[in-house]
């Protein structure tokens, strides 16, 4: 688009777009262009932004001169609209004398330059235009190169990480073959050394996994699927996973989590990843005889969150490092730490995982006494999920229908791989059957070994609910992918006793009531499923 040929003898005139509603200013600028540089510039003028946007979208504009106070666009909004349709066109902002602050803001948002009306010199204008175009072109090139470099680096990292896995596979295979005595009896001392090798294989494996995770973060490909989940179970399981390792080092580890805390809205496997990282760090930095405690409670500062705490009695973290440790590639320079291995990516990854799920992570610590790591996760709230469909006014006779879709494997089991893929196919199909203003598909609430349950909350009348069930059934029957995977489906719908909202009741409270009733209903359904037949 931007024309950058520098053929001096026969230069194409630059296409200048002027958007300005003040007739006097327009006249002045036109005069400047019509003097000595008439052959170099071709001016197109519009009074309104709406017309200018159409013109910009057509392409062919080399530079735009924008007034920031137009009849149909004001302030930075004007600039944003221009950049939205034509990000490749450099923009010079025209401002009044008292508006330099606004002009500075405009520069931050990508304007190339600003000119103060009434202070534009004849000679300076063409130069300002050419400079702006040139600067814009160079910036664009620099950005392109940087993006390309980053992409190459990420691709390289990803490639290397995968290549490393192949030899690691062979090492793992043969070490375990020796350890399991498949190649003859192993002496105790030899077994000990093989176990050390195996431990290091695991470490290398987790470093490679971290490296890949970081490239995923950089590429924005981190996959997080939040659902209503009990974090209590996740914490207890993770803690017990580490009991052996901790005991071997003479450290006690325990989870102290009251029952009855609300469900979290998290991706359990991602929460586990954060916990594994924090606990393995705690074990690494806690000396013999130390203690590690995992706790969870409602977050005091914001009761719509749960706060998880991992406390250790380890070497602690210096105050100046307590923010830095969550940054990429940070490693405390503590030479006293023996056997330190790692890329220093764990806390960086944990931070990303927590932040992307809506929470935050931090540490408080006293050197030589221990560290307390905290992270928060949002509490699952059915009310806030269904709130939007309850705020709309709906016709009389409409109530709340809960539709349950059961996905079951014909041979009685769903492998995790199939489960993940087919669930996402099923969800997409469900979304297709719904009206966005009236119906909500709830996140994953529960699943057994052989089946997966989906819940849809719909604002409908009885007839509408039936039509929807039928539509869902048909969609599922027609989906080849699901049929091929050998899955069967059942759709059932139930109508909740009408819940009416009094005129004075706030929507949030009403949503809370409805949510409680739905939750009860879902619990009943889930309980009924989990009874072995």
């Amino acid at each position, binding site marked *: 688009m931007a024309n950058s040929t520098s053929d001096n003898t026969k230069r194409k005139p630059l296409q200048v777009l002027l958007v300005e509603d003040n007739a006097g200013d327009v006249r002045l600028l036109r005069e400047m262009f019509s003097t000595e540089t008439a052959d170099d510039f071709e001016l197109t003028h519009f009074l309104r932004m709406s017309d200018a946007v159409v013109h910009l979208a057509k392409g062919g504009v080399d530079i735009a001169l924008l007034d920031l106070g137009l009849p149909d666009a004001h302030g930075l909004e004007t600039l944003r609209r221009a950049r939205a349709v034509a990000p490749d066109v450099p923009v010079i902002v025209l401002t009044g004398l008292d508006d330099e602050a606004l002009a500075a803001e405009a520069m931050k948002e990508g304007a190339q330059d600003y000119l103060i009306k009434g202070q534009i010199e004849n000679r300076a204008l063409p130069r300002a235009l050419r400079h702006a175009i040139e600067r814009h072109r160079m910036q664009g090139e620099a950005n392109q190169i940087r993006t390309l470099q980053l992409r190459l680096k990420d691709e390289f990292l990803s490639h290397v990480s995968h290549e490393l896995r192949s030899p690691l596979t062979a090492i793992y295979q043969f070490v375990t073959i020796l350890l*399991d005595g498949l190649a003859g009896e192993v002496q105790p001392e030899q077994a000990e050394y093989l176990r050390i090798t195996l431990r290091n294989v695991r470490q290398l494996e987790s470093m490679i996994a971290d490296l890949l995770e970081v490239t995923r973060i950089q590429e924005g490909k981190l996959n997080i699927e939040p659902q209503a989940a009990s974090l209590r179970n996740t914490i207890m399981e993770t803690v017990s996973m580490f009991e052996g390792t901790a005991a071997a080092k003479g450290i006690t580890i325990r989870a102290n989590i009251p029952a009855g805390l609300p469900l979290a809205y998290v991706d359990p496997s991602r929460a586990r990843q954060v916990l594994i990282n924090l606990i393995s760090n705690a074990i690494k930095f806690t000396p013999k005889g130390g203690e590690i405690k995992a706790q969870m409670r409602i977050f005091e500062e914001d009761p719509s969150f749960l706060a998880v705490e991992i406390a250790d009695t380890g070497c602690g973290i210096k105050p100046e490092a307590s923010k830095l440790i969550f940054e990429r590639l940070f490693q405390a320079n503590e030479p006293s730490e023996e056997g330190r291995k790692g890329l220093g990516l764990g806390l960086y990854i944990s931070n990303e995982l927590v932040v992307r799920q809506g929470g935050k992570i931090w540490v408080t610590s006293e050197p030589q006494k221990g560290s307390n790591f905290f992270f928060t996760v949002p509490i699952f709230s059915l009310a806030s999920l269904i709130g939007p469909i309850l705020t709309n006014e709906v016709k009389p006779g409409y109530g709340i229908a809960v539709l349950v879709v059961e996905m079951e494997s014909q041979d009685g089991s769903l492998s995790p791989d199939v489960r993940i893929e087919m669930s996402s196919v099923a969800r997409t199909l469900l979304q297709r059957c719904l009206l966005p203003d009236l119906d909500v598909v709830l996140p994953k609430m529960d699943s057994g070994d052989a089946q997966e349950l989906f819940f849809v909350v719909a604002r409908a009348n009885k007839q509408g609910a039936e039509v929807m069930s039928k539509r869902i059934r048909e969609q599922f029957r027609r989906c080849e992918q699901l049929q091929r995977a050998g899955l069967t489906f059942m759709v059932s719908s139930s109508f909740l006793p009408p819940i009416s909202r009094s005129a004075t009741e706030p929507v949030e409270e009403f949503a809370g009531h409805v949510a409680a009733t739905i939750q009860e209903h879902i619990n009943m359904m889930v309980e009924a499923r989990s009874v072995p037949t």
Partner: protein
Amino acid sequence: MSNKTILIVDDDPDVRLGLNIRLKANHYNVVFAPDGMASIAEARKHSPDLIILDLGLPAGDGFSVMERLKANDSLALIPVIVLSARDPSANRERALKAGAKAFLQKPVDNAKLLSMIRKVLGEKDLTPRLVHDLGEL
């Protein structure tokens, strides 16, 4: 116990040997192919009960092997487990769509591999662990 036959398709001879020892110790018959082309011939010859398939292969990658298996009536029903070092987020779905029963990433835990094999073969997972499980860290 089991006398089922498993075809291992992998271009890395070390990985083939390692899997051979591990699977034999668990009473499976094992046959091999080092590339995509040979895998079809070996599958025809031995009619294996299961194929463990790498993705990056010479002479026809894992995906094209699955395609050719599918296109062949006598081979189409042999279950396939993909065992690859490649990124699951980019390849799992594709492999399952191509007809694989499961996608496992290398290096795979012995216990995990064996239990997946049993599952796919429809055997009871008794898990008499002849494997070393230090617990994943």
